[in-house]
């Protein structure tokens, strides 16, 4: 093999970015994904770059169809994100970006579990800096919670890996399957990063707190590394079917009532991840192809949506649906590009979601899971509702918020334009994407039935929105926080912890009071005798002392003679 492992290019770029400044650093950033892509194109299938660590051989580069597709995707996502953030002059963000993308590439090309673990941890730490870079108090605490959860997932992964290594002597990262405690630990670690239900709040907590540009990168890498790892380790694991279906369902309810539009997108991300997790659980060639192609399309259209909201936040300083509206007047291009992303995530015919998500649905019905299929359909209508309509509607239309601003900067428009082109290209001509998938594709998205039924589903979902809105039944955008699973660690546990501290303090106070009460008579008695007026503290005349001594001696004399 003549190529380097892809992460090397990005890490070297990060080093260069530390040493340069201004335009030179921007050039380094732009060059990295391009040089990386050239390097990627020269990769041949197979494994290489083996490093000896104690008794284990680490494989830093393993190229097959699955890792190559994710490698390509991450290069593309990094390039789009870097173009989008070209105006940013912030060394922390620029360096963290390259380290983060590099770690994601390291993880998907890792041939063994220990290498995977190492990049897994770099991924967590580098990405945390993109949240910290917002430099607000809220972002700081969100980043801390994010780190605690990510690192805990890493520890679980390491524990599982060590158990497997100890048991089988092999650390190769291949099919793991659900078999024994170690595999469950690893699934839990992957599941945390993939935002499984109840483990998902780090995503909705931290992503919306990042910078306008940081969230674009965050949305691309972490969860997709988890999808890759699940596809590699747990294809066909049945619980994933139901976990995935649950993931498509519950976030859409939160998305409808959430006010922060980037948090709406974060919930919508979990919903999209649900389709992938479900496909991996189904495990057939069609389902895995669906999951992987949807991961590819999701990175691009979710980046596009986060970019459009990032542009809104950058220009207006606002991101709450309750404060926005009517921005199509000042940002028409951003609005149009946002609608392309919205159409793609909603799986409109001719947009990218249409050609990938439907594979998972088809596989669900083929494999005899009609209830799961209905859930996925419900979620498909729901995603159109909250991501397809709500995001563009409340930001760009709805009502005139009075905000007049400028169109997004050129580099932002350019990045959004690239992403939109990919969305439409994959929607119109899916065969290129299909040719890169792990299994040969026999699926035809553009049958007249599929186009018709999907169009019906979406148009009538739009009709429902329209009527709910016209009849005033649609919940207005309100400022507020919606309680989710994070309540446990953000409210209940601190309250319980605070309660425990308060209880201990009260117990201590009670003990002190009790002792003091019990000691009061004693203290009073001592005071009575030894106090200033106490009998024992009184100055005694020397004469009385002599008298008592004489008396004692006399008593002794009497006793002696008796």
């Amino acid at each position, binding site marked *: 093999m003549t190529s380097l492992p892809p992460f090397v290019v990005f890490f070297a770029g990060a080093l260069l970015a530390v040493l340069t400044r201004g335009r030179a650093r921007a050039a380094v950033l732009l060059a990295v994904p391009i040089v990386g892509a050239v390097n990627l194109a020269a990769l041949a299938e197979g494994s290489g770059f083996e490093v000896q660590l104690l008794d284990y051989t680490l494989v830093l580069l393993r190229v097959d169809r699955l890792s190559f597709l994710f490698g390509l995707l991450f290069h593309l996502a990094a390039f789009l994100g870097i173009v989008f953030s070209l105006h940013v002059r912030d060394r922390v963000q620029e360096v963290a970006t390259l380290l983060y993308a590099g770690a994601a590439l390291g993880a998907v090309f890792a041939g063994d579990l220990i290498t995977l673990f190492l990049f897994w941890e770099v991924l967590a730490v580098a990405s945390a800096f993109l949240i910290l870079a917002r430099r607000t108090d809220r972002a700081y605490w969100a980043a801390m919670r994010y780190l605690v959860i990510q690192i805990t997932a890493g520890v679980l992964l390491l524990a599982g890996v060590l158990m497997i290594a100890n048991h089988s002597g092999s650390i190769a990262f291949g099919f793991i399957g659900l078999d024994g405690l170690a595999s469950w630990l690893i699934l839990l670690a992957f599941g945390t990063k993939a935002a499984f239900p109840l483990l998902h709040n780090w995503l909705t907590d931290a992503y919306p707190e990042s910078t306008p540009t940081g969230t674009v990168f965050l949305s691309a890498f972490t969860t997709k590394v988890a999808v890759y790892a699940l596809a590699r380790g747990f294809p066909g694991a049945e619980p994933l079917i139901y976990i995935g279906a649950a993931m498509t369902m519950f976030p*859409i*309810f*939160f998305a*409808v*009532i959430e006010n922060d539009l980037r948090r709406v997108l974060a919930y919508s991300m979990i919903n999209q991840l649900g389709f992938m997790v479900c496909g991996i659980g189904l495990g057939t060639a069609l389902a895995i192809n669906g999951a992987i192609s949807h991961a590819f399309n999701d990175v691009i259209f979710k980046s596009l949506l986060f970019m459009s909201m990032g542009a809104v936040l950058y220009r207006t300083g606002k991101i709450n649906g309750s404060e926005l509206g009517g921005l*199509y*007047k000042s940002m028409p291009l951003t609005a149009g590009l946002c609608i392309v992303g919205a159409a793609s995530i909603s799986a409109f015919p001719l947009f990218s979601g249409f050609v990938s998500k439907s594979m998972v649905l*088809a596989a669900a*019905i*083929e494999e005899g899971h*009609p209830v799961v*299929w*209905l859930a996925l*359909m*419900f979620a498909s*209508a*729901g995603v159109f*509702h909250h991501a397809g309509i709500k995001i563009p509607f409340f930001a760009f*239309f709805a009502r*005139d918020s*009075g905000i*007049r601003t400028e169109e997004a900067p050129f580099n932002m428009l350019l990045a959004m334009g690239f992403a939109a082109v990919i969305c439409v290209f994959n929607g119109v001509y899916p065969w290129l994407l299909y040719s890169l998938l792990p299994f040969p594709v026999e699926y035809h998205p553009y049958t*007249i*039935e599929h186009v*018709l*039924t*999907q*169009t*019906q*589903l*979406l*148009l*009538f*979902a*739009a*009709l*429902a*929105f*329209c009527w*709910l809105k*016209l009849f005033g*039944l*649609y*919940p207005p955008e*309100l*400022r*507020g*926080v*919606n*309680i*989710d699973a994070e309540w446990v660690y*953000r*409210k209940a546990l601190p309250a319980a912890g605070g309660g425990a501290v308060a209880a201990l303090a009260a117990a201590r106070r009670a003990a002190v009071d009790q002792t003091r009460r019990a000691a009061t008579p004693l203290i009073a008695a001592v005071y009575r005798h030894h106090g200033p007026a106490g009998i024992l503290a009184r100055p005694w005349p020397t004469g009385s002392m002599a008298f008592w001594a004489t008396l004692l001696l006399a008593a002794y004399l009497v006793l002696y003679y008796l």
Partner: protein
Amino acid sequence: MAEREKEYLFDDPRNVRRVIYGLYAACAVALGAELIVARHAEHPWEGLFGFYAVYGFIACLLLVLAAREMRKLLMRGEDYYDD
């Protein structure tokens, strides 16, 4: 806002109405097309006339109405986690 601000597309309520009528028309066409297109169904429910249309409509209705109720239960002030 500025007094002589340009009139934008949706400042005219007629244009909003046009969009809504356009949607109605599209819905009618999509539903009507089912009379012409022969569908084969993998699952019995799927074969019912207008299944996707009805399901999409009801799904969104349920979603929004359930979310409205959920809000009563789950919504707190913006600084709920801050104090």
